[in-house]
């Protein structure tokens, strides 16, 4: 599909998108990973990001814009570069997630670097209430954890290392007997 303007995706982005396209019998399957890659480069799925992706994939920008608006993790408006998704679905809210979300919002204030949002169930109800900080799951969080969470994030340190899900043992004690 030719576009009226000459759109050039950065070489590295083009390479990454083309690598994804090669994985599928139909290259259009790469739409989500391609948009995710473009979002990483541009900070959000900006018109420019979408046009560049469309040019590499050989689809129309409108097609990709329609895809991008469907998915929660594809940002269709400018956002802060660090994401803090606070789960406020049922299991987390039973354990104080709404208060937690409010506390994180208050503490983050209008910091343009931070993208704080309430999120649907993130699949970590065992550490409720929890948040996904730039993709890293942390919990169970108390209101007292909020300042350190944001300090760690702003300083580029691992966020609340002792509360990260990755290192947590299975709750089923007999599993490791």
């Amino acid at each position, binding site marked *: 599909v030719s576009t009226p303007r000459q759109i050039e995706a950065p070489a590295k982005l083009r390479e990454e998108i083309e690598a994804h396209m090669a*994985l*599928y*019998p*139909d290259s*259009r*399957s*790469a*739409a*989500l*990973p391609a*948009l*995710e890659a473009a979002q990483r480069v541009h900070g959000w799925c900006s018109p420019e990001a979408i046009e560049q992706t469309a040019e590499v994939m050989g689809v129309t920008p409108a097609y990709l814009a*329609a*895809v991008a608006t*469907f*998915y*929660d*993790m*594809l940002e269709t408006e400018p956002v802060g570069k660090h994401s803090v*998704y606070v789960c406020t*679905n*049922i*299991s987390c*809210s*039973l*354990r104080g997630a709404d208060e937690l979300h409010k506390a994180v919002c208050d503490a983050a204030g209008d910091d343009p670097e931070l993208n704080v949002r309430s*999120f*649907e*169930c*993130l*699949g*970590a*109800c*065992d*550490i*409720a209430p929890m948040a*996904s900080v730039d*993709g*890293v*799951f942390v919990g169970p969080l108390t209101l007292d954890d909020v300042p350190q969470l944001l300090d760690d994030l702003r300083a580029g340190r691992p966020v609340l290392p002792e509360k990260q*899900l*990755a290192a947590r*043992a*299975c*709750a*089923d004690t*007999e*599993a*490791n007997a």
Partner: protein
Amino acid sequence: VKLLFKDIDEPGLCTLDVYSKRGGYESARKALAMTPEEVLAELEASGLRGRGGAGFAMGKKVSFLPKGQIDKYLVCNADESEPGTFKDRELMQKSPHMLIEGIVIASYAAGANRSFIYIRGEYVHQADMLDAALAEAHVAGYVGEDILGSGHSLSLVVHRGAGAYICGEETGLLDSLEGKRGNPRLKPPFPANQGLYQGPTLINNVETLATVPTIVKLGGEEYAKLGTDTSKGTKLVSVSGHVRRPGNYEIELGIPSREIIYGLAGGPEEGREVKCWFPGGSSSPVLKNEDLDLPYDFDSMAKAGSMLGSGAIIVMDDSTPILDVALKVAKFYRHESCGKCTPCREGTNWTVKMLERIDEGTATPMDIEIMASVQEHIIGNCLCVLGDAMAMPIGSMIAKFRDEFEEHIERARVRNGLGVPSGEPVAGEFARA
């Protein structure tokens, strides 16, 4: 009995080295030395029912795929977004090779040569672990061309989603995997005939596929000795909410629900009691305290008017207002409705509005009637079951906690100075709605 979770926290289990030392990929070796028909026979003999939510017999699903030399696909549903469910997450993170081995065996039985793991985008760490394990499996020749000299070839791609509950619905997942918005498709045709890229496709949940190596190892008949008559084997259950030890537990199907909620997960805090619980994720109709002694298996849950679903038990203690639970659930489904079918798109929105009116104190008892009837009109009237997934639990809450809803209306109206409701709408109320 621990099958999937045995030594789940053994250091390095996520690596091929440790997984192989524990007997990993021996089932794949055994299966690939059998004929695909023999492997399928074992799966059917095991009685394994899908662990993603619907509970459909896995072996039967495999047998539905047409035979012959055509492009067939296997898709692993790792979207796990049913609220309260987090079992696949732990399995993929800690034992990714078990899933890959299951996919290799199932693809052989189904005659599929291309496979995909569709994992929700939020599971960054788990997708990274799968990618690392897949790279190892490739090098070792467990995935790729002519696996272990069997003549069976399989490509496998870990595909990351981007945040949409509906992509856990199998046809929505397929559209998403094709690079589109994740809108569900009309069924039939079922994916077994026309799925990914219009080709025959086997779609199974992570836990279902991860169970396959165990079935091959034990033999289908041996596996079927576990569990109940119609619910065979073990199940991973995710327990969350008001319990002292939330987490994943592997149980033999058919044990009393009380044993899971109280025995394993520790039950609610001291002095609190279970008010109600979702037995299978937030889409399952709620059960009450008096249902705690029901055996936890597919049919007992169905007989009690609910479902085992994904095996996600969410517990609410007696301090929880049922209205808060209903609102949370309804808002979630409103947010996640893809908007394709009117009953779901409008029904979820109306339900949220009516619940908000109850909360604000501008509702009348008539709203409960209307809300109950809206739920009935959603069920069975859409392409997929997302609408039903709200209508079933909300309907069950209205039926089982009607007094509480009425009481809330009354209290909130008095608070607002609207007086005790008469059952008739107050003038101007509908205009405001």
